[in-house]
């Protein structure tokens, strides 16, 4: 019998540190997209509340209770980041897909994290415009990405098929900022 070893999407690529900034991998339990059917958002929210203790976030927002999070993921679309084992059966009220094997999650953290990300991402990353509790679907180095501010930097999610390009681009920006700040 084969004994298969599960590898994380960024294994062998991270962690990296350059100057004050570190790029590390995060491995959430599971990532599930939830798109409530027309007029059923309140029911979907109630089901998530009782299972995970989190509701649906507002436009561009994040709701979080302990390790359970829901990210706004587009118009009427949400991304639940929590353990799929607790997932209630809500397929009658929402389109639900397990996207755990689609997204890779990285943390870019440190004093110059915003300066690094600003080289690759067109949105305004200054804390007065983009801070904890918010999230954005945008692009990072021309790749579709989800960027979410953390306490000390950003969580960046990209498609797993793009991780090598994403790490290469982020590392190159990290090196460039580190050299300029020397």
């Amino acid at each position, binding site marked *: 019998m084969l004994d298969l070893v599960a590898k994380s999407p960024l294994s062998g690529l991270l962690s990296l540190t350059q100057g004050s900034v570190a790029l590390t991998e995060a491995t959430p339990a599971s990532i599930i997209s939830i798109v409530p059917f027309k007029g059923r958002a309140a029911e979907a929210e109630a089901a998530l509340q009782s299972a995970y203790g989190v509701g649906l976030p507002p436009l*561009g927002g994040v709701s979080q209770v302990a390790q359970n999070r829901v990210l706004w993921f*587009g118009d009427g679309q949400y991304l639940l980041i929590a353990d799929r084992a607790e997932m209630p059966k809500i397929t009658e009220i929402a389109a639900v897909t397990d996207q755990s094997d689609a997204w890779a999650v990285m943390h870019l953290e440190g004093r110059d994290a915003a300066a690094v990300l600003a080289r690759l991402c067109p949105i305004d990353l200054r804390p007065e415009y983009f801070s904890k509790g918010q999230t954005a*679907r*945008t*692009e990072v180095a021309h790749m579709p990405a989800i960027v979410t501010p953390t306490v000390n930097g950003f969580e960046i999610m990209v498609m797993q098929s793009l991780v090598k390009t994403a790490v290469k681009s982020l590392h190159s920006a990290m090196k460039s900022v580190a050299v300029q700040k020397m």
Partner: protein
Amino acid sequence: MRINCPNCGDRDVREFHYRGSAKLLNRPAPDAGEAAFVDYVYLRENPAGLNRELWFHEMGCRSWIVAQRNMSTHEFAGTELARNAKRGAK
């Protein structure tokens, strides 16, 4: 150039895909006849002023947006989600 997405706020134009005139929202009835479909598929206004057009926030919230853009200055006069946009308007 920045476009004000009704969901995401001001975003760089590189996040968007341009589709063309918002006339595409006003599809003629199936029995409207050939002339109406020729007009719908091929004929476009080219005003030196505001044009109503479709943009897709491809690298963002993935919503279709109807924008009023000044064709002479590229200035945007307003945006709304295509699903809320009035159909049948010129």
